[in-house]
């Protein structure tokens, strides 16, 4: 018995080591490039793994927020932390927007493109429009505050849960957690404990799933590499490069912040957060990385559990730094493609519009969130349909880097909010 558990423990340790995970991912790339048909057959197993991770994320998010906010409100420190959260989020959003815009204006993603490149972009538009003729394009633009509130507040929480409307679930959890914290009740502690037990249960499930991460990543990446077309890089290569440069700049900034606030070495921050970063890269979903983020931040950074459990879900849903980069760099790309000059007012429109667009698309799935770029493009007089087609086509190439950025900056926000003074 002891020998068996001993060897299981060793196997478990080995499966969660970074080298094995990298091996799984590398193997996926190799298979995807060498044997496309087999890779495509293997891909559904990756989808199953994603389903398993996603299955646990909503319960984890809900229970984490309710239990942590409930306790926080009940404690005396709520005001200080809530203030910090607001400030850190605002600063993070402004910083990400400014850097995205700055890198784009320096890098010029859409200016002076060769005829061949423009031809390739034209072909992307032609193929997409041939498949789905947009004779009438009705875009999901949030018209005013009333519409926005409708997106945030669920009429039926179970409906929101079943449809995976993350923003609504978050809102409900916040309200519920707040209520529990405010209601003076003798049994409140028991309810919060219960919620926390449920939370820990789901975390355990995810923990077991993490042993299969190398295999899950192998299948997923094999399928993605097999399916992906490299031709897109011929058209939007410069845009892809600039996005990655912006990601790198923000990662360095984030790393410095984590190192300072968490009192660790710069490189150490990456190794301590490797599991969520790897999950983010392989799954292209910050939600799938959420449980790993909670575990790594609590375990490696010695942050108060309630702060971690509250700020991580809040940031993942509301602060999508990836969208800020896409809206700023994407808007500059489209503007340059159509020879719109970049004056001060245009830059201001992009800056403000990107932030509003990100908030308007909070919790929405990929394409719908991307369509929020209309907030930036419409005031600039740029065609939204064509822009969405172009940016969507290249999305799968920049997704891994953008997801890593979301995860990393979320961790940075948590570390700053949670750090002890002095």
């Amino acid at each position: 018995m002891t020998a068996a558990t001993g060897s299981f423990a060793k196997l478990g340790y080995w499966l969660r080591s970074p080298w094995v995970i990298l091996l799984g991912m590398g193997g996926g790339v190799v298979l995807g490039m060498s044997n496309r048909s087999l890779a495509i057959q293997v891909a559904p197993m990756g989808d199953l793994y994603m389903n398993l991770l996603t299955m646990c994320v909503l319960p984890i998010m809900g229970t984490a927020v309710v239990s942590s906010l409930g306790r926080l409100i009940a404690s005396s420190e709520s005001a200080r932390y809530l203030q910090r959260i607001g400030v850190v989020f605002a600063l993070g959003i402004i910083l990400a927007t400014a850097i995205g815009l700055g890198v784009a204006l320096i890098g010029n993603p859409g200016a002076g493109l060769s005829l061949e490149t423009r031809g390739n972009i034209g072909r992307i538009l032609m193929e997409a429009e041939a498949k789905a003729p947009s004779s009438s394009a009705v875009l999901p633009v949030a018209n005013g505050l009333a519409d926005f509130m409708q997106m945030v507040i669920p009429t039926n929480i179970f409906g929101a849960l079943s449809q995976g409307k993350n923003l609504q679930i978050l809102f409900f959890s916040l309200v519920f957690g707040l209520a529990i914290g405010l209601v003076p009740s003798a049994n409140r502690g028991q309810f919060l404990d219960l919620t926390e037990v449920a939370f820990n249960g789901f975390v355990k499930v995810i923990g077991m799933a993490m042993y299969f991460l190398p295999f899950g990543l192998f299948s997923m990446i094999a399928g993605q590499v097999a399916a992906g077309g490299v031709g897109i890089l011929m058209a939007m290569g410069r845009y892809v490069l600039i996005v990655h440069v912006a990601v790198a700049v923000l990662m360095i900034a984030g790393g410095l912040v984590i190192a300072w606030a968490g009192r660790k070495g710069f490189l150490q921050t990456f190794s301590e957060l490797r599991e969520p970063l790897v999950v983010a890269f392989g799954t292209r979903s910050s939600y799938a990385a959420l449980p790993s983020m909670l575990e790594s931040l609590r375990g490696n950074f010695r942050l108060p559990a309630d702060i971690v459990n509250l700020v991580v879900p809040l940031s993942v849903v509301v602060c999508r730094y990836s969208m800020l980069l896409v809206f700023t760099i994407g808007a500059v790309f489209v503007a340059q493609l159509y020879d719109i000059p970049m004056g001060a007012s245009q830059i201001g429109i992009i800056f403000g519009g990107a932030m509003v667009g990100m908030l308007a698309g909070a919790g929405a799935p990929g394409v719908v969130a991307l369509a929020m770029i209309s907030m930036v493009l419409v005031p600039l007089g740029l065609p939204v349909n064509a822009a969405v087609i172009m940016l969507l086509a290249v999305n799968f190439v920049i997704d891994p880097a953008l997801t890593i950025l979301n995860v990393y900056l979320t961790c940075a926000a948590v570390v700053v909010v949670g750090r002890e003074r002095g």
Partner: protein
Amino acid sequence: MKNNKSAKVAGVIIPLCLALFVVFGAGILTVWAAPPSAPLPADIQGVKDRGKLVVAMFNHDRPPFFYENEQGKLSGLDVEIAADIARHLGVALEFNRQARSFDGVVDQVVSGGADVAISKLSITMSRALRVAFTDPYLLFHHALLINRLQLGALMTKNPGKSVMELLSAAPHKIGVRGGTAWVGYAAQSFPKAQVVALESIEELVSSASRGEVLALIYDEYEMKKIMNKSPELNIDLQLLVLPHNFDPIGIAVGVDNQHLLAWLNLYLKYGSTSVLQENDLWREYGAALTPQERAEEQR
């Protein structure tokens, strides 16, 4: 005694055979040398007497329908159809390419300068007043190339409206190729629009790219040809194919030549399949339909 009998038989049979031979021989000679029993209808007879079919054709090239190939030889779908018809009629083929516009091609038939017009010729109501048209042998969808920036601005000001509604609502500028049926088609589809006729495709496309006109209207085949040749145009211009509007292509015949018209219709329906199949460059981009395909589409 037996000799007498065989001599008698031979005496009857041989003259009989000779007589039959003479009769049959005379009959064969009669049929052989006799003129045909009745003349053909006057319009077709006229062509045969002249020994050649004169086909009016527009004087610039329109590949792949009619064009001079690298060897300088006139080729293309319409050329093959004309040659096939001449072969059926047993006459030589002559092309009359004096006409400098498509309406001019119709004029050639009206004035008698040509028997028929085979020239990617659109069947329009105004032309059909002056000549008779066969049923169409090809149909093109109408297609628009729309300036994206201007369309985007219109869509923002009028949310929820379809592209056609936006284009029809106000006196926008619509570019067309001058001297073609498209001048009329544009006025028909967009009654409020200001129709701007330009001579060449290049002028039309650059005018739309610069935003001097809101949109162009032309046949789907030509539009797809332009967009495939210069895909970078897709950035500035959006291609929209109108699924319910058709440009039918037919052969024009003088109004008095009713039997020739009837015969040409039969030819197009039953006799032209192999010519259409062998000259199938018009199939490129999937942008042209035979009448049978259109019937299928509408079902």
